[in-house]
């Protein structure tokens, strides 16, 4: 068995695609039509294009419990997932400039530096740098 896809629930796939590629810098790997307006969209990291793919899943639109869970995490400020970065400070600077809103500014916890931002698609995302 091999881990190839991890998913993230999004409220609007097209909007998410723009945010995750244009602002975060991921690269679109797959984009296939499914039923209705739904698509199978996966992204990869620029420097690990054969690595795991991030699936932008429209689940909250079609499965109420997913929406409830996503909203509850949001209300509690809990990130859906986290991504590794070389420098949290540099990413904070870069993302703030292009309008990304942070709920937690760069902070230290044990051996990591982290920050949390809003992906505008229903999730908080944490970025982490190993100190």
């Amino acid at each position, binding site marked *: 068995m091999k881990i190839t896809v991890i998913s993230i629930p999004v409220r609007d796939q097209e909007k998410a695609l723009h945010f995750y590629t244009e602002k975060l810098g991921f690269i679109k790997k797959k984009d296939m039509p499914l039923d209705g307006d739904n698509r199978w969209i996966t992204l990869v990291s620029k420097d690990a294009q*054969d690595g795991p793919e991030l699936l932008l899943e429209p689940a909250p639109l079609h499965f109420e419990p997913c929406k409830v869970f996503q909203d509850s995490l949001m209300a*509690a*400020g*809990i*990130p859906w997932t986290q991504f590794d970065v070389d420098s949290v400070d540099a990413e904070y600077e870069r993302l703030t400039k292009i309008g990304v809103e942070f*709920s*937690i500014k760069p902070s230290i*916890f*044990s*051996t990591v530096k982290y920050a*949390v931002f809003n992906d505008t698609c229903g999730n*908080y995302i944490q970025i982490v740098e*190993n*100190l």
Partner: protein
Amino acid sequence: MSFYEEKISQLKKSHYSNDKQIESVIGIKNYIDNNYDTDLNLDFLSYTRFISKYHLLRLFKRYYGLTPRQYLIDKRIEKSKTHLKEQMSVTETCFAVGFQSLGSFSSLFKSRTGQSPSQYQKEQFSRSTSHS
């Protein structure tokens, strides 16, 4: 303060409040990052931080979740991938990232990536030429 921030700050107080220890393991990790290509071993690491070998091992595992040896191997494999992508030979790569024997490098590389270093290099090369 959100629920998440409250939880983080509780956890910090209950489990991660020893700043001196944290500073120490971060120092060890940085030392490995900067010297992965040399003949590193635990005795030397503990000597540079003035703590016993077993204490060092326990601390590192507690804060990074893996042993210094595992961390070092991961670092070397990661760096070797970069060298192989840049078309450095397998033998050169092996020594450039600090392995002492080609056999152990090849078998470790294969067990971590599913491919031998030369297979990996060939695949990366064909990938880069087909893209350009």
